[in-house]
């Protein structure tokens, strides 16, 4: 286990390093680094000062080193638009994004675990096919189309829900549904398939044979065994899906989170914000996936003892 954890963590840091390096070379090779790091509309004195600070007058190699130095002193640059450290801008957007992510995960679990179990038990009946059709639609409808139609119906026609911001509980409804749709679709399918695998096992027949009520058989013997697969899928998929989804959802509903910030920064070419935002989200996703991986290895007694290959 210790060796497995060590190699997993090592691989995680290697990936960080590769991504940071690629971001650096992508930004430096595609244009003038001074325009990229410092931007327009700044006095000559400040420009000289910042050029020296970031080492932009030096060779590519010294620039790379000073780029890496940011990870020790936290000086990731200033936003072109707001002229304040990007690290502050990103920091104040983390909590709204997290809030939206948490409500979406809660909704996803509440809907898709029961739906997946039902779809597995009644796989030949109308319940099974209805659940799978809805899950397919949740997967096939692009989230921005879903959001657009919801805004049209619930905000403009019925005038029930607010469109912009995160002020009240009502503001959470549409963004949460939009962000969860794809997650619900994915998790429902995985739950159903994991349950189908488990339902065919011998211990299920044994549990029934010793006279346990069906509800207990399904929940205790079925769901518990299926939950390992379900949880690992949830953990590994949620970070990536949520990162991709929140960009769209936050930008549609003007939710003050990181996704909205990334799109704004991209549209206004605020490179320092974009660069730091992309790095933050990428590193967060990789870190979460590594943690899930380790938790999964720890939870599985076979892996915990064998130390895995």
């Amino acid at each position, binding site marked *: 286990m210790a060796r497995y954890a060590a190699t997993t963590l090592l691989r995680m840091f290697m*990936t960080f390093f*590769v*991504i940071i390096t690629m*971001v650096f070379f*992508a*930004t430096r090779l*595609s*244009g003038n680094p001074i325009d990229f790091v410092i931007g327009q509309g700044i006095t000559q004195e400040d420009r000289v000062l910042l050029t020296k600070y970031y080492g932009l007058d030096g060779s590519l190699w010294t620039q790379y080193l000073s780029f890496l130095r940011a990870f020790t002193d936290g000086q990731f640059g200033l936003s072109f638009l707001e002229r304040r450290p990007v690290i502050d801008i990103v920091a104040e957007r983390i909590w709204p994004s997290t809030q939206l992510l948490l409500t979406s995960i809660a909704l996803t679990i509440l809907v898709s675990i029961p739906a997946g179990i039902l779809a597995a038990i009644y796989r030949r009946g109308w319940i099974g096919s209805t659940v799978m059709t809805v899950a*397919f639609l949740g*997967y*096939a*409808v*692009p*989230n*921005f*189309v879903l959001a*657009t*139609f919801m*805004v*049209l119906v619930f905000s*403009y026609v019925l005038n029930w829900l607010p469109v912009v911001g995160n002020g009240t509980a009502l503001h959470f409804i549409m963004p949460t549904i939009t962000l969860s749709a794809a997650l619900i679709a994915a998790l429902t399918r995985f739950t159903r*398939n994991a349950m*189908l*695998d488990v339902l*065919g096992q011998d211990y299920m027949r044994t549990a029934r044979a010793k006279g346990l009520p069906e509800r207990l058989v399904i929940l205790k013997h079925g769901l518990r065994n299926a939950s390992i697969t379900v949880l690992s899928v949830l953990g590994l998929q949620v*970070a*990536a899906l949520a*990162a*991709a989804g929140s*960009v*769209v959802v936050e*930008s549609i509903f003007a939710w003050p989170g990181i996704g909205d910030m*990334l*799109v704004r*920064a*991209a*549209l206004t*070419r605020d*490179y320092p914000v*974009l*660069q730091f935002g*992309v790095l933050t*989200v*990428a590193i967060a*996703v*990789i870190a979460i*996936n590594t943690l899930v991986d380790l938790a999964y290895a720890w939870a599985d007694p076979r892996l915990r003892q064998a130390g895995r290959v």
Partner: protein
Amino acid sequence: MTVAVSASRPVLIAALRDLWADATPMQRFAVGLGVSLALLAMATPLIAPFDPNAQSLLSRLRPPIGFDRAKPDYLLGTDELGRDMLSRCLYGLRLTLTLAALGSVIGLLFGGSLGVVAGVVGGRTDTVIMAAVDTQIAVPFTLIAIFLLTLLGHSITVMVFVLALYGWENYARILRGETRKLMRMPFIEAARAAGATPARIARRHLLPNLMSPIVVQFTLSFSNIILLESTLSFLGLGVQPPTATLGAMVGAGRDYMPTQPWIVIAPAVLILIVTFAVQTLGDWMRDRADVRLRPR
């Protein structure tokens, strides 16, 4: 050798007939829908009634036929600059499908070749290629796409490049696995013993056997690429105005949603039809490829 190659055509037709035979009505419908959309996109310059970018300020914001103030020339109404919605939808569909097709084909050629090379050569080459694959899988692609589009500009060329980059890692991963499996087969060893060069082995013996995973992955990746392209265009990060893509039309039309909803609804419904068709096909291919999901 020629026998094996010429035999592959009837085999392909038989495989397609098999596929059609066990398709559900929904999947057959999706095939029909997909073919009609492709034909529509190809015939767009012939059937579109107007130039998609021609403005007519006298007939701005006209609703579709059947509503008040509609003009009979404009079947689906006009947008805020008096451009014909039907023509823009058709050209948007055409561009969306073209971009997705180009992106998928380039991604397939690039990722597929890397995967086959990794599988055939092995060793350090394999390690490096697979490390690149793992890195790309680790980062959500939307982030990479936004970053690259901002950095390199929003031209059609950059868009194709970004779309091609999406999904190459899946081709590489899957084809490497299949190649490694095939390389251990006796018929490859026999070919090598008979003196065939690695290039010949790859072309004549590997490729025909790789067709089925390629088709599956291509369908899946095509539908993902369509989604990605529409999403990026919707956010305003894709191909720039006035060029019409379906996603961009939905994104730009949002400002008029309360009063002129057809500007959004027409392209949004078209996107739904396209994604329904491609996702159904993609899903079908995935289910066929995954033994665990076969009907029990």
